[in-house]
């Protein structure tokens, strides 16, 4: 028996099928919901040498969006007690991977705006990616919220749509030198010389430049200046150069696996300075700190958050529970929490502006001081150029695998171990 469909029946069936797809298919919900959706793009290094950090930053933004889109009365965070913003608008995230490369980041920023139609961007962890990607946003008069990138140059461009939450390497450099001066006064540390080790990138070079300025202002002599290629097979020459110069203090800007390789190479060469302080780097990565074990102890760095800070930031604990469900139990770190703050502050500004107009929201961001229980200072306010003038961090030291607060003295919870214990005495 053969089955033949007449032409009329065929077209009728096709018409019914198409109507069905358009009206009742999965696209329908999306189409209707589009009226009440704000698309936000995220741009982080999801693959490449710093992918671990990038993935945690993305999870932090997702955590913030979960709080904004749903009612969470138990959380002491702005917008947690309501569903959505602007009377029912929900945030939808569109994710992109910068691979930690400036050219890829710029291309992805263009794609997110032009093809995905995102309303604003959040990113990009690497300063070298944030720089070109934020230029794309500025040109299109769209907001770029930058959580963790620390290069001070980013907020020295007088851009109108760029907002950065983290402290800059300029502020951190001053803070590090203040720590050294404090040690000289309080502990008679006699720190006179400094060594710098940093990745040869926008982030590393700028951090080193700021470190040199701060050191020179404080009368400290830079005796070793060691840039290196990120992802190197070894750091033998780099550490040997430091060892040869034997500075009293080392300031480091090393990300991810490079940080652990640096620590291990110093151990192998049986050398450590009296004190080593790191910029936003592998130092803050709780996973690396855990894996390095006792080898990570007594090194220092700036920290905007660690679980040991809960006494200063009590609201974080419950938010962190949501975050941990997305990271397999890994808590917030100083970088990822800034990305969550970036999303929350942007949502507050949209709510306050009352309209989805990027220029108005940018003006609102500049004009107000924002409550931010996930920030160390509890507030966020943006200066001209977009820098968060309320950004704070604390100099911490890893002791027994925990980030202990050391400086400023009024925020300290532990005595510093100085100098770093020799490798054979741990």
């Amino acid at each position: 028996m053969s089955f033949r469909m007449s032409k009329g029946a065929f077209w009728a069936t096709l018409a019914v099928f198409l109507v069905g797809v358009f009206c009742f298919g999965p696209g329908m919900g999306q189409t209707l919901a589009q009226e009440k959706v704000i698309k936000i793009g995220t741009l982080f290094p999801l693959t490449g040498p710093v992918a671990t950090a990038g993935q945690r930053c993305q999870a932090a933004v997702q955590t913030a969006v979960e709080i904004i889109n749903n009612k969470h009365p138990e959380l002491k965070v702005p917008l947690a007690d309501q569903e959505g913003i602007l009377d029912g608008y929900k945030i939808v995230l569109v994710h992109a991977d910068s691979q930690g490369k400036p050219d890829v980041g710029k291309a992805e920023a263009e794609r997110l705006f032009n093809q995905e139609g995102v309303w604003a961007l959040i990113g990009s962890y690497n300063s070298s990616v944030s720089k070109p990607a934020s230029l794309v946003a500025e040109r299109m008069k769209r907001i770029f919220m930058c959580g963790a990138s620390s290069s001070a140059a980013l907020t020295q461009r007088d851009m109108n749509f760029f907002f950065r939450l983290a402290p800059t390497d300029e502020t951190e450099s001053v803070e590090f030198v203040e720590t050294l001066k404090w040690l000289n006064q309080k502990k008679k540390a006699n720190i006179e010389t400094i060594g710098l080790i940093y990745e040869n990138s926008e982030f590393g070079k700028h951090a080193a430049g700021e470190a040199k300025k701060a050191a020179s202002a404080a009368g400290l002599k830079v005796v070793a200046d060691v840039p290196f290629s990120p992802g190197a097979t070894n750091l033998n020459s780099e550490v040997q150069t430091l060892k040869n110069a034997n500075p009293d203090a080392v300031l480091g800007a090393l990300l991810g696996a490079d940080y652990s390789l640096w620590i291990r190479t110093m151990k192998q060469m049986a050398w450590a300075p009296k004190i080593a302080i790191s910029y936003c780097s592998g130092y803050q990565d709780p996973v690396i700190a855990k894996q390095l074990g006792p080898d990570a102890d007594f090194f220092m760095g700036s920290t905007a958050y660690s679980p040991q800070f809960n006494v200063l930031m009590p609201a974080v604990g419950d938010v962190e529970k949501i975050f941990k469900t997305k990271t397999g139990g890994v808590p917030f770190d100083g970088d990822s929490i800034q990305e969550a703050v970036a999303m929350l502050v942007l949502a507050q500004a949209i709510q306050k502006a009352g309209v989805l107009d990027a220029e108005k929201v940018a003006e609102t961001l500049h004009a107000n001081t924002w409550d931010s229980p996930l920030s160390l200072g509890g507030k966020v306010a943006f200066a001209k150029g977009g820098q968060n003038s309320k950004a704070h961090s604390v100099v911490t030291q890893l002791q027994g695998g925990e980030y202990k607060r050391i400086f400023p003295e009024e925020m300290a919870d532990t005595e510093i171990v100085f100098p770093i214990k020799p490798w054979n005495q741990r």
Partner: protein
Amino acid sequence: METFLQVLIDGILSGMVYALVAAGLCLIWGVMDVINFAHGEYLMVAMYVSYWLGFLVNVDPLVSTIAAGVFIFGLGALTYKLIIRFTIGKPGLVALLATFGLAVFLKNLCMNQFSPNFRILSDTWLGGKTFHIGGIILAVPQLMAAVLALVVVVLLYLLINNTRFGWAVQATAMDRDAAELVGINTERIYILVFGIGGACVGIAGGIMPSYLAVHPEVGSMFGLIAFVCVAMGGFGSIPGAFLSGILVGVVEALAGFYIAPVFKYVAVFGLYLAVVFLRPKGIFGW
């Protein structure tokens, strides 16, 4: 003088590991004329094999390096059976692109399965151990890796030059058709060559978790340096690849210390360009 000797020894130790990675690539390249772009990723997979054996069943990298070698031998043989044999006799670009695809596949597979996290094995037998000769510090993990590299490269050299199997490999490399005419099973030779080439890099990767963090990107730079060693040493020359590996390690260390650390790869690739320009067939090429 002490510092110079320290830098030189560090360079030689790194260079011997580069040499072992390059020896496997050299064998595959010399015999089959196939550029294996996935060589660095073989190293990364071997490091994961060793890491997981250490993490899950507490096997030290010094032992699991053998398992990593065997695993990558199998991966190499499988690569030949599933991919490379279809590219034999076709333009060289086909095999190159196929192995490039394999490299991307392996990297992303590991990224997906193991996440991009950096994984460090602590409490290994050799981890953090050093011994001192005068003022020179020798790191035991790197020293063992170098000794292992030397042993494996010597064995590989003897295998290729002093055994019937090795002569069959050489005959296949010179003229596949003629080798088949005298009864050599060239298909089998190809599988074994790809496997042995993989095993070399597998052994190198297997011992590395003693001192290096494991992550999906870790093999890229080693793979690139292996290409430089093979091209500098001369295509198909195992002694050439070995000496080039050591030369690369030494140049990298000396340039890194005496010129600037950031200059070390500039010096390595500059040397490579100079050798290729002055002697395109490499130092030991024919």
